């Protein structure tokens, strides 16, 4: 049985639908992520799970019990707030001990558990400090330790890494995965950073305008997005308007003035369907226009721009119909960061099984 079931939950603020018939379940021990742009309803959904807000429709069920009449302090659900919400008048120790005190555990029990928790987040030497004496990363760890100390059934994390700089963020991501794996508490993690979601999660629900657009494992979301929103929101993608010309083992798509391409078959697609062909930049090969390519799909264009970001360079190629296509090339050959110059004629190509045709 699933640990948490969100059953067709809707939440309205006046006329505005913040969460719109959301329905999913989370398994015990899972690292589950809600991913979506700002204002899509992630926090609203989280607040309903924590008990600070009630759904207008639907139910939230934990361990088979409807939480409707359970107040936040009685739910075995803890939250790590984006601002951490550490108690400023308590030391690190006292902050971490707070949930245990509320649960009326014995002093001795509390002492042992706090000591272990401090060790777990590497804060032994900061036990008697106050939150304002800590760095951002340390505060983050205190908030995590506090949220986990009495082993809730569910830990909700609302953009907990949002306030950290890139380097620290990456480090905390690694710590977060390790912590979740060691302790085994189920995480529901909220973020609008897709890379973070992909790196951390077992499963991701992509939200937009209060609805779930797709719920899948990271590689499926990235490799087989169900619609344009998901394709565009997760990673970089090239998108081109396309019409289905013929359906057989593969699809033949017309890309307007550009010509025809072969694309992977997709169930339910009929001749004449209009949609978008999407392909990731790393699936596009790029070479000098003079070189031949074995790929069935290929076009000649000119290099319009490139973005060198160290490990890879993204080339932005102008296609004959005026559209742009991004192609990615790893810079594995040392000292050679740039294979092409601006204005160089290049040949872009991809295999018939690369990319996808999306109607939604």
């Amino acid at each position, binding site marked *: 049985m699933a640990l948490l079931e969100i059953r067709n939950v809707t939440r309205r603020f006046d006329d505005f639908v913040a969460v719109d018939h959301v329905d999913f379940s989370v398994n015990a021990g899972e690292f589950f992520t809600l991913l979506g742009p700002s204002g899509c309803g992630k926090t609203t959904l989280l607040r309903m799970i*924590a008990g*600070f807000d009630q759904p207008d429709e639907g139910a939230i069920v934990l361990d088979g019990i409807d939480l409707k009449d359970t107040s936040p*302090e009685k739910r075995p659900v803890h939250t790590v707030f984006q601002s951490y919400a550490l108690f400023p008048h308590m030391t690190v120790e006292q902050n971490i001990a707070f949930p245990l005190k*509320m649960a009326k555990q014995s002093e001795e029990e509390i002492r042992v558990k706090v000591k272990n928790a401090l060790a777990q987040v590497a804060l032994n030497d900061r036990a008697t400090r106050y939150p304002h004496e800590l760095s951002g990363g340390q505060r983050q760890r205190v908030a995590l330790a506090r949220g986990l100390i009495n082993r809730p059934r569910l830990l909700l994390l609302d953009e907990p890494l949002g306030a950290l700089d890139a380097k620290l963020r990456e480090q905390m991501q690694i710590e977060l995965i390790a912590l979740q794996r060691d302790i085994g508490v189920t995480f529901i993690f909220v973020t609008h950073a897709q890379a973070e979601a992909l790196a951390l999660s077992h499963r991701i629900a992509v939200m937009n305008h209060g609805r779930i657009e797709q719920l899948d494992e990271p590689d499926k979301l990235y490799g087989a997005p169900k619609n344009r929103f998901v394709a565009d929101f997760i990673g970089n993608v090239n998108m081109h308007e396309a019409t289905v010309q013929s359906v057989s083992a593969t699809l033949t798509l017309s890309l307007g003035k550009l010509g025809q391409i072969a694309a992977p078959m997709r169930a339910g697609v009929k001749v004449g369907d209009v949609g978008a062909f999407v392909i990731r930049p790393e699936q596009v090969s790029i070479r000098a226009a003079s070189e031949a390519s074995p790929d069935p799909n290929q076009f000649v264009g000119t290099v319009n721009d490139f973005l060198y970001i160290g490990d890879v360079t993204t080339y932005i190629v102008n296609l004959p119909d005026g559209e742009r296509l991004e192609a990615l090339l790893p810079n594995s050959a040392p000292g050679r960061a740039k294979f092409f110059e601006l204005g160089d004629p290049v040949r872009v190509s991809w295999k018939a099984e690369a990319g996808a045709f999306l109607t939604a």
Partner: protein
Amino acid sequence: MSLTQATRVRGERLLKYIVSAPPFVFLLLFFLLPALIMVVASFRYPGEFGGLAPLFGDLPADEKGLTLENYKIFFSDFIYAQIFLKSIGVAALTTLICLVMAYPVALLIARSPKKSRDLMVLLCVLPFASNFLVRVYAWMIILGPFNLLFSRFAVIVGMVYVHLPFMILPLYTNLEKHDPTLLDAAQDLGANGWHRFWRVTFPMSLPGIFSGAVLVFIPVLGMFAIPEILGGKDDWLVGNMIKESFLGTRDWPFGSMLSMMLTIMVLIIAALSTAFAKRGMRRA
């Protein structure tokens, strides 16, 4: 350091002196100087019709120069210490009642929508728009019919009434700054309403309580009008003794001595409570 930088720094320092000079001079003239005069006066003999006896001149030795006589009187009769203790008691009780009454009000204002807060604060200080004495006399009219006038009770009622806003305002200023997510966090971690108040809101409001207590306790300690109007003969406080020395018996040195004792007492209490509060506040 370049020359222009040096000039600028010197200019800034000069500006600082110029800006801080007037208040400094003002305090020197109207606070420090009178305080020193009072210190000296407390060691002198009274003049014949009030004022002070001359320091030198054609007078018997026990009527001129400096003396410890005033302090001797204070320490020789327990009644003075008793009045001081009573005053501290009244001030402490007033402070406590103000705190208990002001806390819910301040909390209510701090948790109201932003728009209505200013109006509510205004309502709290509205009584200041009418004259202090008028407001105290008003209590005579209220308490008179119940036969409660001229009692310790009436004094406390008047004291609390007059000083309540001085407790509400600092408390509100403190409570308003509390981050509401802290209460959400506390509730989320299992704290019920009682624990949320006593473990989060209350300890975080200690600095506000401290400011409010100072603003109530010290003025009450020196207050003479309220005991005089609402209290009986038994309710005389330090303030009444001081006032009586200057305006009644016209013994200025004795009044100065009492003022000195009051000042010393306030300083001792302030030092003790600051040391005490520092421990609590370092965390907040």
